[in-house]
Structure formats: C-alpha cells, structure tokens
C-alpha cells in the first residue's frame, strides 16, 4: 500500500511538472485581454481567431508540412536503402559505413545548420524551403537508417533469399518482400522524421529566407509583441499534432 501511494504521488508530481507549461499555455490562449499572464480576465476566442486569420502563419504551417513530408520521404528512402545494404552482409566496411551514416546524430543542429549555411554561401545557392529540406534530410537520415537497420532481421533475409531463388529481381525483392515485412518500422521512421522536421527551429531559421516554416514564423511572432496569440498558435499546433498522433495510434491498433 505504501509503495502504491509513493508511486502514485511521484507520478502525479511528475505529470504535473510535465503538463504545467502546456496547461498554462492553453489556458491563457483564451485570455480576454492583451497579456497572457494572470489574472485570467475571462474567456475569449479572439486570439485563436486571429491565428486562423493570419495568412503568414497559415502559409508557414503549410510550408512546414511540405518540408516535413518531402524531407522525411527522402530520409526514409535513403535510410532504408542503406539499411538494406548493410543487412546483405556483403557491404565492404559495413561497420565504418554505419558509423559514418549515424554520425550526424551526435552533432548539434546549430553546427549542422551553420555548416550548410556556409557551404550554400560558397556554392552561391540561395536559401529557400528546399535548403531547409536538405538540412532536415541530413538530420533525419541517420535516424531512419538506424530504425530500419534494427528492423531488418534474419526473417527478412531468408524471405528475400527465397524470393531471389524464385527469380525475383532485386528491385522486386525490395519492393514486394522487404518493405512490406518491415512496414511498421518504415512507418515509425517516417513519422518520427516528420515530427523532428515539423518542430525543428535552428536549421530552418538559418537556412530559410522569405518562405519560412512554422517554428521560424512563431519565433518572429514571439519577437513582434507580447500577446496571447503566441499561446493560441502553440495550443492549436498541439491539438493538430495530438490528433495526428492519435490517428496513427488508432490506425496501427486496428491493424493489429
């Protein structure tokens, strides 16, 4: 009983800590006044309406979705192909290659962003959403590679061998045997990539110019005046993401 009480107390405290900022954020997004701090002056949907009527924010949201999906698709593709290469057991220097592919994981986003900024400068490449996507592929490919590599096991390999023995071409093997077998891993890698790209700030900040992603737009909103609009954006983004996650969760549960 003591133990149960201790566990319950700890959980309550920690969940309280975890939810505190989100709760405060959401509450004061309904503030009927100019400042998102106590006292709560009454309930208003004014700031939410302002967000939905802000063309720049909506454009940034669409930009973010575009960058997230495009860069994640590319990252999953690159990661999956490389993971399969390693899994064949025929890849020379497989260990070194794996290490090289996962190296970006331990490098700070700020450093990756700065390096790309300097390089694009030298190359004479203008900054745009495409350059942001390039940066996001760099940070997400290692992740996708690691997830796919962990998922490809002996079961896949023997199935692949069987398919090959039956005369299937390499592409068909990959598309019809390996990919479907590790579909959950591919999906997980893709969604994780989308999340990271969706929420990434510093690379997007350094590598974009006029068309910006949502975190960058929120950053400039934050710097253009204190008001509960920032709270409203945060709450709406939260709801959007939560619904997406819930949807995926339900979809995968039904599959089982």
């Amino acid at each position, binding site marked *: 009983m003591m133990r149960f009480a201790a566990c319950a107390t700890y959980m309550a405290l920690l969940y309280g800590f975890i939810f505190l900022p989100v709760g405060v954020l959401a509450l004061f997004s309904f503030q009927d006044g100019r400042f998102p701090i106590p006292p709560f002056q009454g309930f208003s949907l004014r700031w939410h309406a302002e967000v939905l009527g802000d063309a720049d924010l909506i454009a940034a949201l669409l930009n973010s979705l575009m960058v997230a999906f495009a860069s994640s698709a590319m990252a999953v593709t690159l990661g999956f192909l490389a993971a399969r290469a390693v899994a064949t057991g025929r890849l020379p220097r497989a260990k070194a290659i794996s290490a090289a592919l996962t190296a970006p994981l331990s490098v*700070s986003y700020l450093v990756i962003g700065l390096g790309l900024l*300097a390089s694009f400068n030298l190359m004479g490449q203008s900054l745009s959403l495409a350059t942001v996507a390039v940066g996001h592929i760099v940070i997400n490919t290692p992740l996708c590679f690691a997830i796919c590599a962990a998922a490809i096991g002996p079961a896949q390999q023997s199935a692949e061998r069987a398919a090959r023995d039956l005369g299937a071409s*390499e592409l068909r093997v990959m598309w019809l045997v390996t990919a479907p077998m590790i579909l959950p891993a591919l999906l997980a890698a893709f969604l994780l990539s989308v999340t990271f790209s969706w929420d990434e700030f510093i690379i997007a900040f350094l590598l974009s110019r006029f068309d910006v992603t949502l975190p960058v737009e929120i950053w400039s909103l934050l710097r253009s005046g204190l008001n509960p609009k920032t709270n409203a*954006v945060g709450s709406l983004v939260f709801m959007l993401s939560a619904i997406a996650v819930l949807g995926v969760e339900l979809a995968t549960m039904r599959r089982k």
Partner: protein
Amino acid sequence: MSKTLTIEGRDRRRALALAAPALLWTLVFFALPFGVMAVLSLWQRTDQGLEAAWTLANYAKFASSPAYLQAALNSLEITVVVTVLSVALAYPLAWIIAVELPAKYRRLALALAVVPFWTSYVVRSYAWSLVLAKRGVLNGWLGDLGLPLMDLANSRAATVIGFTHFFTMLLTLTIYASLVQLPPNLRRAAADLGAGPVQIFRFIVWPLALPGVMVGAFLTFALCIGDYVTPQILGGGNDLALPQLVMLQIGRRADLPMAAALSIVLMAAVTLAYIAMARWMKEPSK
C-alpha cells in the same frame, strides 16, 4: 570458383549501390560542410568581408577572453546539471511505468508522459517564461498559498527548468525502452533466490539497463549543449551560453569564421563527452 567470386563481387557492388545515396548525401551535406566550417574557422572577418588568413586567431581569441570561456563554462555547467536532473527525474517515472503499473495502462501512461512533446519547441520555452514570470502562474499560486514568491524568470534556473522539462520527457521514453527489454523472470529468479528489492535493483536492473540510460544521457548532453532557443528565451541575457555566443557572432558581427571556430569548440566538448561515455561503458566493473 571464379564464378562464386564474380557473384560475390556483384553482390558487393549491389550493396554499395544501395548504400551510395545515403553515403553521398551524408558526404555532400554533412561531412563537406563540416570541412568548410573547419577551414572557415581559420579565416578572419575584416571590413571587406571574409579573408583567407589561415590563422588560429579565432581560437586564440576564444582561449584568451574570459567572457568566451565563461560562456563555454556556463554551457557545460547547465548541461551537466540538466543531464543529471533529467535522469534523476525520468528514471523513477520510467520504472513505475515499466514495472509497477499494470500492463494495460503502460501505453497510456507513456503516451501521457510525452504528450507535451507535441507543442512546438519554441512555444514550450515561451510557455515556461509565462509560468516563471514574476507575476506569472507559479507566483500566483505561491501567493495564494501564502508562500514566499520566487524570482526564477530570466535566470539560469529558468533555463535549467525549461531544459529539464524537455529532457525528462525524452529520457522517460528511452529509459522505459531499456527497462521493458529486461526479461521479468530475471527479477523473479533473483527474488526466488532470496534477493530483496534493493538488491535486485542494485545488482540486476541497474547494470542491465545502464547502457540504455547512458545513451539517453549522452543524447541529452549533446542536444542540450548545442541548443540556442531555450537559453535565449528563458535566460534573460544572463549567463550567456555557447550557442548564444555563436549566434551573436552571426547576428551582430557577420563573423562567420568566429562562429565556425566556436562551433568546432562546441563539437569538441560533445566528442569528449562521447569518449568519456564510451570508456565508462567499457569498464567491466561498473
């Protein structure tokens, strides 16, 4: 014989072709930019633009100016405190979810623990600034309860709280993952052999889950020391952190070479932490 050799050669070429796109991408957009940075860090910013000076002056400036060293020290201290605090907070929660909780609630509990992940990262720091402000929510509550108010906003404490919040969520996830992988019958067997709960934890769970915890801690370290947003929003211009110093070079002086040199210093710190972790994990006695 020669036929198998050619098959093997063909397989190797095929494998290489599969790995090539990812490798090429990593080479062009990760390794190469890194090289560009290393080269750039030896250049100098002058009135006319960037000059290929081939000098260690930027590093010398870092090593000789107390303000820069202080920024590096601030970053290191904040990161260490955050890493330790986050592990200390996340471990018990991950343990409760993985071991104490009935299996059917686990997924829900874990999902709840990471839900705030889904607010935007920038907004999360901002939300903490509202909570900790002098007339913010926290002080509102403390005032209602008749407790002394806390002056946490715009300080290192605020930065640490913001970071700890994020990394507690992250670490709960990673530590949970390594705890559920431990076969439960190991614990049962130890209990059958007369081990108490403390002993089971000390001699079985802790050492077996340690690698996972260490990887999570390293990830925390690497992400925390390189983050600009949290100290910028919550630190209030006090206790400058290394990434802020890097951004100052770009934002105020257009001094890409100095920013590059400071980034290399930042990377060196992360690499040292990585080596330390790798060494520590290799030591069998631990």
